[in-house]
C-alpha cells in the first residue's frame, strides 16, 4: 500500500523555467514532509522540508507547498538549472512515532539547456 505517491515518473523542463513536482499522500496523520534529490549511483540528499503547521517553506530556488486538506505537496524550482536534473523523492512521516519515513516512487526531472 503506497501511502505516498508521485504520479509523474518523469518531467522535462526548459532551463530557466519553473519545475513543479507533485506528491500526494493518503495518511492524514503525516505531519512532516521532506524532498530528497538523488543523482544516479548516489544516495539521496536532503533538499527541503515542511512541517504541517506551515503551508509554504522556501529555500533559495526551492519552495515546497503543502495543502493539508488535499493531502498534496509540491516542490517548485525556479529558475530550473541543468544541474537540477535528478530524481526527486518526496517523503512523509508522523513525527511523534519516531521518524519512519514513507517515500514516493520518485520523479525524474530533466532540465534542458
Amino acid at each position: 500500500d503506497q501511502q505516498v505517491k508521485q504520479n509523474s515518473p518523469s518531467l522535462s523542463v526548459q532551463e530557466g523555467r519553473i519545475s513543479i513536482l507533485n506528491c500526494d499522500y493518503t495518511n492524514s496523520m503525516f505531519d512532516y514532509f521532506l524532498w530528497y534529490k538523488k543523482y544516479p549511483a548516489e544516495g539521496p540528499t536532503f533538499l527541503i522540508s515542511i512541517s504541517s503547521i506551515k503551508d509554504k517553506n522556501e529555500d533559495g530556488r526551492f519552495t515546497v507547498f503543502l495543502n493539508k486538506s488535499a493531502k498534496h505537496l509540491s516542490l517548485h524550482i525556479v529558475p530550473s538549472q541543468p544541474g537540477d536534473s535528478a530524481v526527486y523523492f518526496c517523503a512523509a512521516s508522523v513525527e511523534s512515532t519516531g521518524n519512519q519515513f514513507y517515500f514516493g516512487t520518485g520523479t525524474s526531472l530533466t532540465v534542458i539547456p
Partner: protein
Amino acid sequence: SQTIHQWPATLVQPVGSPLSLECTVEGTSNPNLYWYRQAAGRGLQLLFYSVGIGQISSEVPQNLSASRPQDRQFILSSKKLLLSDSGFYLCAWTDFNYGYTFGSGTRLTVV
C-alpha cells in the same frame, strides 16, 4: 559531525551466492538505522529498520535479513541471492531532528 559509510559501492554476485553489505555511522549514538532498496520503477522501498542493538524490524518479507551487532553498525545479508535481489541498496540513519541521512549506496547486480 555525523557521517555514514556504506560499502561496497558496487557488487556483482552470482545467483545463489551469499551477500553482506555493511553500514556504519560515526558521530552519533543510538541512531535509528534503515536499509532501503531502490529498484527500477519502484522508488525507495524500506527493507529493515533498527532502533537499537539486536533490534530489527522487517517491512517486507524476502530473501534478505539484517543484523545490528553494534550500536553504529548495520548489516544487510542474504544466504542465497536471487536475480530479483538486484537493485540499489541504501543505508540511512536519523537522529529524529532532521529526517534521514543516506549513505552513498551499493549497486548490486545478481547474475
